[in-house]
């Protein structure tokens, strides 16, 4: 034979009955119902067991220096007044990630520009090297002219004139 109560109604009554929060009339009525309803009777017994098990869980004593530590923390915390009140104002909070993102972007741009100045692109570097080599070659030729050597450019196929 099923219970006449809905599941949610039964739950609410069982929890209230075990907790002792039902008013006297409701308690008496549900008590009568439980006599004839096996499922509610079983659930009530289980809920009462849970309630008394939870009753046994007593908290630990609070540390004697709790208030002192709290007073120290309050004394050390910045008082919210003037400029401080602006920073603790909740309306500023959404702007903080945006400001952080802008700062990172600016830093990245500065870093990129600085890197380009110190390290020119590879194309410029090889041009510079060729120019230096040509200058050196011309300097060498001048030097050899001064000491009387024939510095005409000879291809490998032609024998060198002495």
């Amino acid at each position, binding site marked *: 034979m099923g219970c*006449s*109560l*809905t599941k*949610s*109604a039964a*739950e*609410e*009554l069982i*929890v*209230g009955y075990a*907790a002792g*929060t*039902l*008013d006297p*009339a*409701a*308690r008496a*009525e*549900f008590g009568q119902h439980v006599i004839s309803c096996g499922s509610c009777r079983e*659930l009530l*017994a*289980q*809920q*009462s*067991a*849970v*309630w*008394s*098990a*939870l009753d*046994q*869980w*007593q*908290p*630990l*004593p*609070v*540390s004697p220096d*709790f*208030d002192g*530590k*709290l007073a120290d*923390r*309050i004394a050390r*915390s910045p008082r*919210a007044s003037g400029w401080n*009140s602006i920073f*603790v104002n909740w309306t500023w909070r959404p702007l903080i990630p945006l400001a952080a993102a802008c700062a990172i972007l600016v830093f990245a741009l500065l870093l990129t520009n600085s890197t380009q100045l110190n390290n020119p692109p590879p194309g410029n570097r090889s041009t510079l090297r060729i120019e230096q080599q040509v200058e050196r070659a011309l300097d060498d030729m001048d030097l050899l002219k001064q000491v009387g050597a024939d510095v005409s450019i000879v291809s490998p196929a032609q024998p060198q004139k002495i």
Partner: protein
Amino acid sequence: MDSDHLDSSAAQPSWNPRVNNSKTAEASKTSERLLDRDAGLMLRVREGEEACFAVLVERHRNAVIHYLYRMVLNQAVAEELAQEVFLRVYRFRATYEATAKFTTWMFRIATHLALNWIRDGRHEKTQESLDRDGDGAVKQVRDRCRTVEQEMLYQAKLREVRQAIEQLPSKQRAAVMMHKYEELGYAEIANVLRCSESAVKSLLFRAYESLRIRLAHMA
């Protein structure tokens, strides 16, 4: 200053009985007067009367720490988080408005900190979360009236209860702790968790169903 109704909007079950999820009428009137006093004290803190803050700490310190202890299952962490709760209450005193009960606001902060700690500490969970000593024994105040055998049985039961609580999803755990130990009604728990009353009932009933499965053998 406003004072919220206790569970005035609790949904009625389809059956006849009236369900009153608060204390008896007289006790609830007393608690409402006390809670109104809390909001009044907090408004005076806002005006600069810091002695009133000390009164609020004295009145609610143990409740906050015990609630946090049952949430995070570690006394040292609970006290640390409780310090943070009161620090935030103090820090935001200038913007306090008595639009909700002071305890609702306070438990909201406490629950937020506890849920964050549970979420962030989940991968670091060790035996310390069960408040064990170095030799593995569970730290608990010994009752000198119990015999050694009774003490061992008690400690074993306690371990089962704590493990059953620890296995609850964090929001269900918060709802049970507020309902069972702080005796908050569905409406107030809904305000703390920022959800509907029906959502709170759903959380609570699922939590109790899980606890019945795990702890019913203790009957």
